[in-house]
């Protein structure tokens, strides 16, 4: 009974330096629990601070803390642009 959120934008498509609202985290994401604990929770605003070169991880700013997530994880996080 998984709810699928397969519409809209993924974090991996986000632009450097922009802020987004987390919509949801895809079901099969192994890191879901860890993301929750790091404060990456639906409804929270994150800013894409840096992208490491060579398809490296993303650095996000969440609640004033720098959080690093791999691109695989970033492709499972659904986001919405901040108006």
């Amino acid at each position: 009974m998984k709810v699928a959120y397969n519409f809209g934008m993924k974090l991996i498509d986000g632009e450097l330096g922009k802020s987004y609202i987390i919509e949801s985290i895809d079901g099969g994401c192994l890191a879901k629990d860890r993301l929750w604990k790091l404060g990456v929770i639906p409804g929270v605003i994150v800013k894409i601070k840096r992208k490491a070169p060579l398809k490296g991880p993303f650095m996000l700013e969440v609640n004033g803390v720098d959080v690093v997530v791999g691109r695989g994880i970033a492709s499972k996080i659904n986001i919405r642009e901040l108006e």
Partner: protein
Amino acid sequence: MKTVALIGQPNCGKSTLFNQLAGYKSLSANFPGATVEYTRGQTYLDDEIIEVIDLPGTYSLSWYDDAEKETVKALFKEDIDVIVNILDASTLVRSIELTIELMSLEKPIVVALNMMDEALRKGIYINVNKLENVLGVKVVPVIAKKGKGIKDLLKAIKNAKKPSKRCVYSKDVEKYINAIASCIEKNNLQNEWPSKLMAIKAIEGFEACQKPLENSVCEDVLNQAKFALKDGLVIVQERHALCMDIFEAVAKVKKKEKKNFEEKLDTVLLHPFFGYISMIVIFFSIFYIVFHGGVPVENFIIGIFDKIDHFIDLSLANYKLTHAIVKGVVDGVGAAFGIAFPYLLPFLFLISLLEDVGYLPRIGFLLDSTMHKMGLHGTSMIPFVSGYGCSVPAIMATRILKSRKEKIISAFLASLVPCSARTTVIMGLVGYFIGYGYAILLYVINIVVIMVSGIILKKLLPGISPEMALDIPPYRLPTFKTLLLKTWHKVKDFVFLAVPMLIGGSVVLTLISYYHLDNIINAIFKPFMELLGLPSTIGVVLLFGVLKKELTLLMLYQALGLSSLSQIPQMLTHNQMLIFTIFVMFYIPCLATIAAIKKEVGLKATIYITLGTLLLATLLSFFMQVIIHIA
């Protein structure tokens, strides 16, 4: 004896607090079945000895990697009397989430509110009494780095009580949690988790708590709850809101001091181009300092041991066997000290400095994509870099890695990095006789082989390599005392591990030459040597190399029956030197390294790694020989 477990999220200053509590007297040990090391120490509480366990940092009780899993398992398995939960006051909201989970274990608990000074710098003022009342748990403010509040903490540990409150969710959520919890209890599906926490984690989809309920009578209740609570998201958001509420109730935030300097530092150190340049500069400086600073110290130590050797030669001249054994022991001790003090001590000190300043997770960010192809993370860089000095600390450095798969891969690959002893063979044989261009070529081949092996191992080994998901701590200035204690722990590990191996190796070597066993060994190795196209007298050299790689070059010319190194070209062709060096570069790690690998990944994996290196070395040397013959 009371057992106290320290538990907290990563970078909360847990180890610093541990060092303050248990100091240098602590011993670290691998526990049966554990893939991750945790440290135990003892301290006095009035007249009573208490045992303190330092568990690896975890964000939550629902683990994401092997290190976290070990922490949670230890928490359930070990007979713990008091939990000391360390909170980083500067990231209070996130830290309280773990506290709430720990409180549901219903064990006596004390909260150590660490880094109060850093919180103040960030403009966060925390009312400790209020926090204590809201949580229903004793809260002790500490600044572990400066040793402040340790006495109060010890007192609180002595009087620790079970939490007087528990986390209550909204009525609707509690209804579902209770339904599952009572179903779990009624049907005896409970594992080591408290039933309510197990219910929450099962709703949130945490494997270890969800699995026992699958295909059970409780499955329907669980599925209903999952549907109603959006796979646990409702719980997560409520808990997050609760933590925010607690924070707002107990803390005041005054205007934030701008982290200008840190931001600027990150702009350079994490820059897509300059970040890598600075990294190379930083590591090059470390090597420069260690190797240039180490040489005079090493010479001094060798000088002392030479005098001791001389004295032994004189006084035991008439007792040949005793003389051989005593000399073996002294040489072994000398070799260990000759590595540990001049090179290891400063190297480990500088690595600890990088770690505590907060640079290591940043390297992880920069190198993650390259390392991920080999089934590793950016942080696995440390074992590799250390490997160019000595393989033993390189293997010990795999301790910081989080998953077992990653540890095995890193241990294998780090043992392939030519240590300083193998460097003498590469430089002294290939570099000196064939040309330094060839020596550099060998280093390049080495790196390529390591990368290819990593890619293959990633595919072969079972287990997932979890992707990076962690927080980058702010830059921090560690105290000298903390760094020294940390370095001391690591050096102590090396001494305990390597000294017996080096002594054993030296004694065996002297016995072999005393009883003239060389010929028997060479006869055994003869077919193998022929396969590689090398003279059979070298067999004994390779065996000696396993005991102590420093001796390889020295033994080589002696085994060939020459009186000095410069005569080697009389007995070996350039091609043979090349093949020999390639074999030495990759084959079986030395005994001390094998012992270190066993300590980190267990016996079975060690056997595979050892055989793997032998196979790899044989294949590469054979391959090299074929290429030479064709060319």
